[in-house]
């Protein structure tokens, strides 16, 4: 006999009310990052990192700017999902919630700066 209500079972969201959301988002971003990360690693190796003009021209191509923006956004999202669990596991007491909020802020800033930098280079004529 299950103690769960029929509604609870139908919704399937579990005790925290989020269901498989965290798990699924982590997997979806993982697949995206495996592809974007492999692409970026190969590109980095074929580029001359000392030649800023060449790098700017490379980012100026629409597909590269798009994929690079997506890499920053997806990496920030996947990273937040991951380090959030690490904090939830190891940080206890009064520091826990402030740490989680600080991590959210840090990832939001990283994502925003990264995307804006790509856009500045791609369409801002940097």
């Amino acid at each position, binding site marked *: 006999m299950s103690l769960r209500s029929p509604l609870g079972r139908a919704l399937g969201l579990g005790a925290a009310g989020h269901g498989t959301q965290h798990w699924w988002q982590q*997997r979806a971003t*993982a*697949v995206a*990052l*495996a592809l974007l*990360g*492999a692409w970026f*690693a190969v590109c980095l*190796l074929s*580029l*001359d*990192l*000392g030649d*800023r003009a060449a*790098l*700017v021209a490379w*980012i100026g191509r629409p597909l590269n700017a798009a994929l*690079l923006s997506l*890499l*920053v956004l997806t*990496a*920030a999202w996947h*990273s937040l999902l*991951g*380090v959030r669990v*690490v904090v939830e596991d190891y940080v206890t007491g009064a520091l826990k919630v402030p740490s989680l909020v600080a991590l959210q802020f*840090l*990832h939001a800033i*990283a994502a925003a*700066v*990264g995307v*804006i*930098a*790509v856009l*500045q*280079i791609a369409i*801002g004529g*940097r």
Partner: protein
Amino acid sequence: MAVGNRPLSPHLQIYRPQITSVLSITHRFTGVVLAAGLLLLVYWLAALASGDGAYAGALAVLGAWPVKLLLFLGTFAFFYHLCNGIRHLWWDSGHGFEIPQVNASGWVVVVASTVLTLLAWAVALLGGSS
């Protein structure tokens, strides 16, 4: 609640390290390292967007030897987390749970991430671009 007085189960100092547990905690550790790597990527992009002077300054920082060593270790973290992440996705699809398979896939991840790290740095250094 007297948290400090509860009996604890045997912990890290007691258990013999096994490839499964070592690779598992390494996956988490490299994930945290890559979170720092995200900040590095953003720093690099911001420097790139900020002009020649700023980018030259960033290159000087990234080219210093202690930083280069960290970048090398970071490259390993990247490839390890990538390879072991694919291993996790394979598990998520319901495959490879027998102990011999788990041990074998673990060693594949160790070898693949090491080879990819060395290969990437060989290309970077021999290409003369770093």
